């Protein structure tokens, strides 16, 4: 299978994730879309690594996974705290921090 297909899949996944982040209100879903975008990028890294015969891309994929895990830990904690106080996981409700 040619690497182009992997890249195309990565682009599709990334666009789905990006649109999800922009249009969904539920913070949980937004997190999942962010994960989708990260994984799309990971897929692109690995595909390009394979294409160029260079290991750097694969190493970076591991780094991205670690960062994503850390981000999820912190993000979910915030999400829990917000949900406990406001009984809602909608990001549009949490709009107090403004002008």
């Amino acid at each position, binding site marked *: 299978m040619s690497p182009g297909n992997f890249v195309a899949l990565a682009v599709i996944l990334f666009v789905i994730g*990006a649109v999800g*982040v*922009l*249009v969904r*209100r539920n913070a949980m879903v937004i997190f999942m879309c962010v994960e989708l975008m990260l994984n799309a990028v990971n897929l692109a890294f690995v595909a390009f690594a394979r294409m160029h015969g260079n290991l750097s891309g694969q190493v970076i994929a591991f780094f991205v996974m670690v960062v994503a895990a850390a981000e999820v830990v912190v993000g979910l904690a915030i999400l829990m705290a917000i949900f406990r106080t406001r009984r809602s996981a909608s*990001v*549009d409700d*949490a*709009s*107090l*921090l*403004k*002008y």
Partner: protein
Amino acid sequence: MTGSLAVATTVAAHAEATLPAVGVQRAAWLLLVFPLFGAVVLLLGGKRTDRWGHLLGVAMPLAAFAYALIAFAAMLGYPAGQRSRSVQLYSWITAGAFKVNVGLQLDQLSICFVLLITGVGSLIHIFSVGYMAHDPGRRRFFGYMNLFLAAMLLLVLADNYLVLYAGWEGVGLASYLLIGFWQYKPTAAVAAKKAFIANRVGDAGLSLAIMLMFTTFGSVTFGGVFRHPGAASPGVLTAIGLLLLLGACGKSAQLPLQSWLLDAMEGPTPVSALIHAATMVTAGVYLIVRSGPIFDLSPDARLAVSIVGAATLLFGAIISCAKDDIKKALAGSTMSQIGYMMLAAGIGPAGYPFAIALLLAHGFFKAGLFLGAGSIMHGMNDEVDMRRYGGLAAVMRITTLTFGACYLAIIGIPPFSGFFAKDTVIDAAFHSGGTGGWILGICAVIGAGLTAFYMTRVMLMTFAGKRRWDENAHPHEAPPVMTWPVILLAVGAVGFGAWEILGDRLAKFLGPVSGYTPPEPAVFSTSGIVVLALAVVAIALAWAMYGRRPVPGTAPAARFPVTAARRDLYGDAINESLLMRPGQWITRLSVYFDNRGVDGLVNTVAAVIGGTSGRMRRLQTGFVRSYALSMFLGGVLLVGALLLARI
């Protein structure tokens, strides 16, 4: 042979070296420490010194006077050329080439002033014990008075201009505190401020003169400046002289900085006596005479001094002729007498001894007159309007006699001090040469006639005629603590002047400092006889106007010259229209420019930035998804730009 010797001594006199002090004179700093100690204890001690504060306040000047007498006796023990002694206390400022030591110089000139300041000052302090007996602030009053003496003594004892300047400023401060002593009276507070500001103008002149001296001679000590004054160009010497004159005008209330002196009468009467007789106004004369070596080389500056003196002596005398307030009449008289001293000082070395002689004589009779006025006010419920006096001779015998003696002294009736002191000044003015000398002399003669007129007017309105008192005034003689100082001053006024002038005692004594040896004693000069005749005419005129006719209770309506004199010859009006109003315009213009111009620019910039930020602020909606969208669009733009750049 004798002539050439005299010239030689005159030339050598200026180079008279100042020797280090030995013996008792080494403790000259005691002169400063006594009054300063009194001031510190009384001002910092607070209420617990109230009970005995005035006693300490009197003891300190007396102690200083006692020491001054000892130092004077020691000085007389030295031969004439070695009487200038200095005491170096400590090094004050050391900055590269600029070194200032705090040093005291005891020479013939400064000892004259020290004796006057401490002697007359002590008598005024004793008088104040009685005069201020019922004032709740008596302790504070004595503290300020002691501070005044300390500052004045520092001024006359300093051996360099910078330390002199410190004393000069101290005198200004003390006079401010004392003129505004009753600060709850708005007039007193305003008068104090006025005195301070007028003095600041003069102080600016003195400080510029000191700076100019340092750049020219590289030194500010008397020794350093006077060693080779000829090394400077005549223009610089004239500039220094004129700046010194400006300083002297401020302290001595000479034209054009005279306006504060009449208002300074708002202070308690002993303060007026101290300012007018022993301290403060004499400082200007001291400065001119002390700076003699500079003025000797600058005829223009000398001429300016003489002109200022002649103008002021007429100015003050004319004002005095129309004043109904006894203290203001005496204040105008002080301006006039100091004018005589300045006139004499402007003549040069030949005039210095006469200026100092008149200054010392004036110290006695003017202190006597002011303290006499204080006694009268003490008995008349603080009334100062002479139209409410009249017939006081019958109830205040001692005051009448002492005031009368000082009166005869000031108008220059022969055996009294004023005659000898003033006549020599007038004579010196005529002999100063040329048409200028004649003009100065004629001014001085006219001034003497006016002096006789206004002083006779004061005498007649106060002590003679019908009683025009308030119903609740019960005039009585002052207690002995107030009469005795005045009696001593009157004795001094009667005898001292004659003693110091006859046989040129003072001129010979001051010779090494002033650089002038008097030729021969001349008692009755032509001008003296003219002055005497004029004085008799003026007395007769005053008698015709105020003695024969009854004095109206309120000032009658008058025409031009009298109204002008009543308004201080428009001194305040001139200051107001020439200085105050334009000053206000400038401030208003600056304020307008500041508000509209500077502030306008700054405020516009601020408003533009503020308004823009206010609008930009609206972008922060708090909706996370809109932030995400802007980040996304930003990312797209970035990637697009990268791609484009690559292509």
